[in-house]
């Protein structure tokens, strides 16, 4: 039902619900804070990945099921075999490789297959990775570092300091698609088509350079991002916060020397692949980002992705839902999972066991096995108006009484 939004009512709504609403355009124009508020929309996001190098991936890159089959005697090309025939045979062979001994598809049930001997990971103890040291971040906030969970080799930062918490990089870094500019790292394209988005709000900011107590909101965006004609995100657009409580997160933090440090909090954001609605879930997520004078925020969103959730949403796609919130078509799920593995250059069991192997967070109290893996994203966010109202679409109800194009 479209309701009349009078100016009185709209301002009342803002007063009631506004999380970060700049009301003075002059203040907003500077990209600075308005009465301690500022809102942002993510304009870019990607995994913090380092490109594969010989030292990091001494055995080369992972293989997909087709490549694995091609390595077998049966999979070699036969003399005089046409391209078409060979492609068909490879495809059939790949399907065999994707089938576990019990008949299950290995993407649907990766545990049914053993570890993939062709899967390559970043095992070098002194591997260099992108991202932040989450423990150092916590220390900055006066929070005691977590006890070392599931002993693992911490990664080195570009500055040579040990402690980068980005074990996800170890799991996927030797896969051709998971390079910094690889196809698995261009998922922001979906964000720019309006499938999903992320909003960030800062409140209670007295000083944007040094402030020892700020409030931070991290939300799923209920609106598609607004773009210019050349597909660049526009600043100062208005976006509404997702009304689903699961996708609304609040935390606190500090600003030190123009850099924002937030306290750990669980964050969920949307993802859409092949029309299936999925989510990205980070536990104990933190933001470490620079507030630039032109109003942009850029930095790192880091946290721990539960391995099972990560696999089900990012690799197996069994968590996929349709537009009505019902489980997605199983054939679509299976096709997407196997297709993605084939195109992106890994096998589902290879990834599954790698994620489990490098998991470094949230040990199971009973088994001691780590259930989450550290993961980091680089992001950039630009100024936006973030409102907490249930927005409407004209699709809900076509405007009646329009003047039919007359002026």
């Amino acid at each position, binding site marked *: 039902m479209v309701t009349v939004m009078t100016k009185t009512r709209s301002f009342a709504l803002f007063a009631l619900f506004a999380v970060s609403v700049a009301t003075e*355009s002059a203040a907003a124009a500077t990209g600075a804070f308005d009465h301690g508020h500022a809102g942002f929309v993510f304009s870019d996001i990607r995994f913090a990945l380092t490109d594969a190098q010989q030292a990091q991936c001494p055995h080369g890159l992972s293989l997909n099921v087709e490549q694995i089959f091609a390595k077998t005697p049966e999979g070699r090309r036969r003399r005089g075999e046409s391209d078409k025939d060979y492609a068909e045979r490879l495809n059939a062979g790949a399907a065999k490789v994707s089938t576990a001994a019990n008949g299950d598809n290995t993407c649907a049930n990766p545990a049914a297959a053993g570890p993939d001997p062709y899967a390559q990971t970043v095992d070098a103890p002194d591997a260099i990775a992108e991202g932040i040291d989450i423990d150092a971040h916590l220390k900055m906030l006066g929070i005691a570092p977590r006890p070392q969970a599931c002993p693992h080799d911490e990664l080195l930062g570009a500055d040579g300091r040990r402690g980068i918490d980005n074990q996800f990089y170890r799991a996927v870094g030797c896969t051709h698609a998971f390079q910094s500019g690889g196809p698995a790292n261009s998922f922001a394209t979906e964000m720019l088509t309006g499938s999903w988005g992320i909003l960030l709000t800062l409140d209670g900011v007295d000083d944007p350079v040094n402030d020892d107590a700020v409030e931070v909101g991290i939300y799923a965006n209920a609106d598609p991002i607004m773009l210019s004609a050349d597909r660049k995100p526009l600043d100062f*657009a208005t976006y509404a916060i997702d009304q689903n409580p699961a996708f609304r997160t609040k935390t606190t933090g500090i600003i030190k020397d123009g850099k924002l440090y937030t306290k750990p909090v669980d964050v969920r954001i949307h993802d859409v692949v092949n029309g299936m609605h999925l989510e990205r879930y980070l536990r104990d997520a933190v933001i470490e980002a620079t507030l630039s004078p032109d109003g942009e925020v850029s930095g790192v969103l880091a946290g721990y992705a539960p391995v099972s959730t990560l696999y089900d949403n990012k690799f197996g796609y069994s968590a996929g839902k349709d537009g009505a919130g019902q489980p997605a078509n199983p054939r679509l799920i299976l096709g997407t999972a196997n297709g993605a593995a084939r195109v992106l250059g890994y096998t589902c069991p290879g990834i599954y066991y790698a994620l489990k192997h490098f998991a470094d967070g949230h040990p199971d109290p009973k088994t001691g096995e780590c259930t989450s893996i550290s993961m980091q994203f680089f992001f950039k966010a630009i100024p936006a108006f973030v409102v907490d109202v249930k927005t409407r679409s004209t699709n809900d109800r076509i405007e009646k009484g329009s003047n039919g194009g007359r002026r």
Partner: protein
Amino acid sequence: MIVHVAAAGGRRRGMRLALALVVAAGTLLAGCGETEPTPTGSAPLVRRLTESEYRASIADIFGANVPIAARFEDGLRIEGLTEVGTSEAGVSPFSVEQYSDAATGIASAVLDAENRERTMPCKPRSADAFDRACAQAFVQKYGTRLFRRPLSAEQVQRYVGMAETGFDKLGNFYSGLEMSLVGLLMSPEFLLRIEHARPGKGPVTELDAYSKATRLAYFLTDSTPDDELIQAATSGELDHRRGLEKQVDRLIASPKFEAGVRAFFWDMLEFDKFESLAKDPTIYPAFTPDVLRDAQEQTLRTISATLLRDHRDYRDLFTTRDTFLTRALGVIYQVPVATRNGWEEEQFPADSHRAGIQSHISFLALHSHPGRSSPTLRGKAIREIFLCQEVPGPPANVNFALIQDASNKKFPTARDRLTLHRTQPSCMGCHKIMDPIGLTLENFDGAGRFRTTENGAPIDASGDLDGHDFSDVDGVAQALHDHPETPHCLVERMYRYAVGRDTTFDERPYMDYLYGVFERDGYHVPELMRAIALSKNFYAVRRPAPAPAHELARASESGERK
């Protein structure tokens, strides 16, 4: 949504307006010493329908679902109005082609199986036989609406004949009617508003009743006379003050009046130029096609709400912070707009520097260059559009090199770059009247976004308007509101729009009279339109003087030689 505001507000507006008009009429009757000057008139005109009038007429006659697939030629702007240009513009072969396409599409839709039930005034005996009586009923019904007067017997016979010829060729009654309808739609009697003078003696007379109805309907509703108005013309009701008042008040109280007001301001604000407005997307990325569309609508909605729904003083248009926004506009205005798709009634914050329609994107972006603002274009537009002051064009040999160099570090702001023009004798005359206002609007870039610096240098937004000094952009709003020429200009523009021509010297007393009415009624636009619609001057026409005998003789000789 504004739609509901307007719909709900329409009834309120109607009642409020009716009350106000009664009071206004009472004031007039009570006599304030002013009576309407004797009409002087001008020759009856032939006015081409504007695109908006064409579309509205078709929608009103056949229904809004009838498509009009054609591109209309740009209007000719004369004396600041395309409506004045309608009496001087020609009809090009391109236009005829487009009219033909439109007519074919309209006729096909009107008589297709889906609409036929609704549009046919009769049911033919059979689609396979020619039903003359039914064809005649169809021609008479739609001919009267399209020609805005009853058809003569000869005209009826001609268009029924067309239908019969069509039937003979195509073998279907409705196909024959389609041909006849195309003929009606292509007739000059429809495409042109051909005014007829009432017969009589003396140089000044008035339009005949149907021409009166037409002038009245297009002025107040931007559309063709409805059945009731045509009936009033037929019955002679429009020839008497009381009957005319009844029709004028009916039209003003109708929802269509808003379309009439919007059409006038669309024309006055030169919104036809949006058709060719383009901005460099690398410089103004936020100026999207949505902004292009919504900017015009924002201003027209603001005008409707201010003048009609809220029944405010016309001059408040230059100071009001009340407006309507979409999210696309919010990006440029840098204000939040909660509604995702649609319009939201809002008020710009007091310190937003947004007051008045001259601070809207529709004005600021329209009167700028594709990649930079323009104090000169904006200053000129304020002078010409809102104050009816004519500013001559630039001399032919003017050097624009510096002013076009918007990134010049030595002259970082437009004020710096324009100094040369303001001091050069051949330029300073005009620039001195344009720049002081235009430079004040430099706080808005070429897309209309607020800024305080240009190329890193602070913008000096001080200026003046005819003795009214101000230190920043907010001063322009009040200066325009208080300028004595502001309401004068509207009166002049409104009357020119209503009659479709420039005013004459002999009409000065009438203009003064109209201004007096406007001022006395509190500068309310509906009352001004009512006063025009009820005045004898509005319908007055001058008979062409008989040609002198020697000219007739010369013409005759010329004809013989041929």
